[in-house]
């Protein structure tokens, strides 16, 4: 059970640190997980190419929400180029658990939204390729 639900996942799910909506913001993006209706939106403030502040909002399971919270935490103070280069493995490391393919989609929804926003993609251009 420990590997499934590390304490930090349940904590961050119940009391996330970075839930909110920044206004003004330089980056905004939102998307859904078609398999379950989970929703994540992300707002980011950028200064000199570096993430000054960021927040997420939305709803979903503990994995999707904790992953979003930990991901947002991890990008504070990061150059945008590094944010664009984030991968699946970074999120898996943040969560510290193993996930099957469907659960992985929950975990990666926030990364997908974040990268789509960072790259300035249109809705049609978003695909799982962003997080592989």
């Amino acid at each position: 059970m420990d590997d499934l639900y590390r304490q930090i996942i349940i904590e961050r799910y119940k009391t996330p640190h970075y839930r909110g909506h920044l206004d003004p913001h330089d980056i905004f993006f939102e998307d859904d997980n078609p398999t379950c209706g989970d929703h994540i939106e992300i707002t980011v403030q950028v200064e000199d190419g570096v993430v000054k502040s960021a927040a997420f909002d939305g709803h979903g399971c503990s994995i999707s929400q904790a992953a979003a919270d930990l991901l947002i935490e991890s990008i504070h103070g990061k150059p945008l180029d590094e944010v664009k280069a984030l991968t699946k493995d970074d999120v898996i490391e943040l969560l510290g658990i193993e996930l099957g393919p469907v659960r992985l989609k929950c975990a990666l929804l926030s990364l997908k939204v974040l990268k789509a926003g960072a790259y300035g993609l249109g809705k049609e251009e978003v695909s799982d390729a962003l997080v592989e």
Partner: protein
Amino acid sequence: MPKTPLDIGLIRADFPILNRELASGKKLVYLDSTATAQKPIAVINAMDEFYRLNNANIHRGIHTLAEESTAMYEKARQQIADFINASAAREVIYTRNTTESINLVAYTWARANLKAGDVIILTEMEHHSNLVPWQILTAERGVRLEFVPVTDDYLFDMDAYRELLKLEPKLISFTHMSNVLGTINPAKEIIRLAHEAGALTLVDGAQSVPHLPVDVQDLDADFMAFSAHKMVGPTGIGALYGKMDLLQSMPPFLGGGDMIRTVHLREFVANEVPYKFEAGTPAIAEAIGFGAAAAYLQNIGMDAVAAHEHEMTEYVLERLAEIPGIKVFGPEAEHKGAVASFEMDGVHPHDVAQILDSEGIAVRAGHHCAQPLHEMCGVQSTTRASFYLYNTKEEVDALVEGIYKVKKIFG
């Protein structure tokens, strides 16, 4: 419903997967048959043997294997027709699944017969498969969609339906049994009223055909769509039942081999029903598996299957009611198939499902392809446990224990 008790022990022995031990060391408790059913040896072997002994392409060959394959493919059609009491095998068209069956009607009958402003009535409890095809049609043709609401006790709103019928709809397309609520809709009455109002009917039988005795002639359904994989048959095949005169009047759908009578470079003449709608090499092994599945269920008896599931429904509702913080969506057992979709205070369905999985219990979490219905219920998603002829009360007990474990972890 007659209480013909099933010998569940014997039935379970037919389904090899039910002996599976999971990595967790737990034995599988499969409560996800509404998504797809498990397969008995009779079905698995029918396809396996076909590939080992008979496999050939059909209709166009006269060597022994081709003759055998053709005969097996058509015998299966008869078995499926018998299962739903169609008046002739040729009223059964093979498709990939319920979804394709509904799309077939939308692409052929509807596009040939409906014009802008024509009304189609659906319900608010439809699966996406019975929403999106009509939305695509609406965007293309300006057809108008109206929805029969779901009552506060999760039933088809008959009064609202009578009102909507005044719009002189051309088609009522509705689910016979909701895959979320379990609601069993009064199909015969819905169809009778539709016909009185001059409308045709399409019954989404994805959940009813596997779980209830269904007689298309008694219902007087014009079309009925269902999938093999939900009725202990293989993936990759489903059926569209249609009344013969309707099918004959419809233009073809996909073009290609087998659906033609003659072809020239610039024109073709369509083949007769049902082949007109079966373009290209069909799912031959799957049709044979589908036939075996229908025969398997018919042999057990759908009355007995439904009676067993009714008992399961009563029991699971009773047990879930004991647990604080659980809300089950759906009507009383009387109107309900063996599906329990529920919400659990403070825990997302994904997390419920994942923890249950660690106990070997397979349930589904999500919107179950019925987002609008979930919206109506005021939730994003639910956890769904569903039951079939091979499930036992002990498995319900395991579910309940698992839910207590979820509570402990997220407590």
